[in-house]
């Protein structure tokens, strides 16, 4: 317990602090509702316009709609940008203080990053569930609503997969953080990774809707585990042995990225120059 104490404290402190930014949560929710609504209508138009293709689609329209709302709700669980706290610490040299703590710096940044992403996602997801899951059916738009998982197994797989998605996203966030620490700026790197994440996490288009020849590669790449895998588990599109494969891939990429991040961090800290003052 005592070994974990610093990390638990760092997590809960950041989590609770971030939860207080209500205006940001509401603004984020509004944006994501807007995009979610547009995407849902575009999918509906496509499915209606091409009934033959729709019949052969690996996902039904209802599955795609639920997937879309979930993707909008969990948007901040993907590592869109470096942790602003790390970026600031690197710019101001306050990173020196992180090195003065009797804890593993990688783990400290990791838990703080996980808290940052989780605390941003939680209020947005709750509002989205309320809006797309409850309000839409109540006003007679249940065809457009966020539906519950089809089976208990799908719900259970999602419940395991969601924390794994957070662990994987944080492991990737750490790679971004370490690049920021090495280059002393977060500008270029944030732009570079944004587009990769939007496409390959399934946020732009569910990965199952890409052509068949791309499916294996799309499932195996690391960004799938940040959003697409948990969402496909939720709507029941990945089930049985495939569900286990999806969870296994999430674990694999999390471990691989943590090992890579630790290796890179040790190198960066070795040649870290905290200059001035």
């Amino acid at each position, binding site marked *: 317990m*005592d070994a974990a*104490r*610093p990390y*638990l*404290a*760092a997590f809960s*402190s950041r989590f609770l*602090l971030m939860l207080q930014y209500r205006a940001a949560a509401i603004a984020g929710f509004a944006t994501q509702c807007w995009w979610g609504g547009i995407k849902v209508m575009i999918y509906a138009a496509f499915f209606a316009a091409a009934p033959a293709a729709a019949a052969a689609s690996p996902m039904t329209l209802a599955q795609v709609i639920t997937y879309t709302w979930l993707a909008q709700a969990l948007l901040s669980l993907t590592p869109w940008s470096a942790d602003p706290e790390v970026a600031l610490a690197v710019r*101001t*040299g*306050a990173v*020196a*203080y992180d*090195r*003065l*703590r*009797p*804890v*593993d710096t990688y783990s*400290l940044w990791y838990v703080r990053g996980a808290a940052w992403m989780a605390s941003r996602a939680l209020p947005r997801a709750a509002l989205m569930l309320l809006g797309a899951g409850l309000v839409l059916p109540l006003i007679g738009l249940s065809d457009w609503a966020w539906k519950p998982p089809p089976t208990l197994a799908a719900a259970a797989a999602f419940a395991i997969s969601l924390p794994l998605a957070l662990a994987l996203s944080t492991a990737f966030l750490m790679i971004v953080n370490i690049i920021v620490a090495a280059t002393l700026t977060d500008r270029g790197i944030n732009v570079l990774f944004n587009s990769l994440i939007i496409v390959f996490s399934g946020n732009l288009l569910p990965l199952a809707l890409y052509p068949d020849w791309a499916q294996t590669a799309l499932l195996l790449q690391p960004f799938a585990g940040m959003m697409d895998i948990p969402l496909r588990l939720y709507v029941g599109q990945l089930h049985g042995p495939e569900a286990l494969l999806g969870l296994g891939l999430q674990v694999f990429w999390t471990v691989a990225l943590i090992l890579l991040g630790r290796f890179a961090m040790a190198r960066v800290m*070795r*040649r*870290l*120059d*905290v*200059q*001035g*003052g």
Partner: protein
Amino acid sequence: MPQILVEDLAKTYRVAERDPGLLGAVKGLVHRRHRMVEALRNVSFSLEAGELLGFIGPNGAGKSTTIKILSGILRPDAGTVLVNGRVPFTDRIAHVSKIGVVFGQRTQLWWDLPVIEGFDLLADIYRVEPARYRAARDELVDLLRLGPVLDQPVRQLSLGQRMRAEIAAALLHAPDILFLDEPTIGLDAPSKLAVRDVVRRLNRERGVTVLLTTHDMHDIEALAQRVIVIGHGQVLADSPFETLRANVLAERRLVIDFAHAAPDLALPDPTLPGVVVRSRRGQTLELAFDPARTPAPALIAAMASAHEVVDIHVGEPAIEEVIARFYDLHGAGEA
């Protein structure tokens, strides 16, 4: 064995350079130029437990670099550093749990958190046992008069309040070594006095070893028993404060107000060896003299007998001036 041992320490920074203007920026895209800056070359000293050492030197002399190496943040390029028998960089986690560090220019408290929550978080990070933490915290809050600001977010504190909170934050885990890098920078007089008072008490009453860098010579005068002067990455002097003062402070000043225009003295005068005119303005004359060669009474008598004197003031040069001259003497102006 001394508590802190530093031998032949060297550290070089690699600094990117760019020509000025648009052309320089474009050239920088293609080819980066780097310059090596020697922050430290060959620094050696040692410190016994319970000592209070002042580190002085111009900006860029290597003071902060030394502290960062001693606290395990930076890895030296060459040389030996042992603190409590440990190598700070390689044995970082064990090392930093026993030291407290304050960088006057940076903050270690969380900007948006109330002071007390920042303290709680630090206690968790250092795994301080709850009862011991509460005792240490209450004592520090009392000593540094932090009671009224405990519930305020750090961003709302004045600089003086923040610095006192920073010092408390560095001491919650009861370290036996304290590194203070410019702890009084930008503070007003009462805050400076409070900081000095705490540092002195920690050192005298608890035997905490203190290594302090500062540009404020009054900090050094008030606190340090021993002073290291550093310049261009080298130790220029390592001596008790009084020795340093006596060596470079041998000079006295005599300011005389005359009833009429100040006389134009013919100096050097063989009867008044070592006396020089520093300034002559209107009725006021300022002389510098070496009391070992011309005692003050003899100089005053000589002045009073030849001229009509209104007022006399004997003083010493300001300590800042002495140190500046010391830097010049060793060619250690700002790097």
